[in-house]
């Protein structure tokens, strides 16, 4: 079986980019949480955590 060539530098860039995007998402999520009622965000959180 022929395996694909791995470009580690490219993968590292993807990883860094993914992390940057995650951090941006954290900021957006924190902003969203601040704007919602506690009932709203905690109800959403419960669905995720308890699933």
């Amino acid at each position: 079986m022929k395996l694909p060539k791995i470009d580690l530098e490219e993968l590292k860039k993807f990883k860094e980019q993914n992390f940057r995007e995650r951090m941006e998402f954290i900021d957006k999520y924190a902003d969203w949480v601040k704007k919602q009622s506690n009932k709203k965000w905690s109800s959403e959180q419960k669905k995720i955590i308890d699933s």
Partner: protein
Amino acid sequence: MLVMNIKYSNIIILEKELSNLDEFTINFTKKLNQSKTKYAIVSGYVSILFGRNRASEDIDLILERMTFDKFQKIWIDLVLDFECLNTDDPKTAYSEYLINGISIRFSRKKEYLPNMEIKFPKNELDQWTIENSREVKINNNTIYISPLELQIPFKIWLGTEKDLEDARYLYQLFKKDINKEIMTKFNRQLKIEDTFNRMIA
């Protein structure tokens, strides 16, 4: 001052729909509160408590160093609802685990997860954490957490992606309210000022 409907003064007041993890934590710490035991929750649960959407199988708790007699009293109360996953003997838990700096874990009876990982303070930083723990009133229940001025820098110091995300989340929520002078001192001591400025602030 209100942050996400949290009243942030000396006591943080939070009303929320409780998850399974919240209920576990509240029921466990209620027993510590009843015996007036000092402790601080220091793990990723602190960010989950305030809304971060991720799971955690354990909650880390620093428990004040105490005599065996006091520990045994707490143990007797705890095992009414929880079981220790390491041993069923309080003497062993105390003298072979906690005193030697090894943590013990409690879960609800006949369950394994989630569990509460308990240790005695190992150094000055741990001791400072419980001496300066922050009271949170959650749906009228009290829990004590690590001061956010330390929790955020410490998460950055741990440095995994998950820890950095937790740190950023807490900072985004509480940046207007935390004591920046104290946090900056911890940043300096932990040598994470660059990471803080680059990734969190």
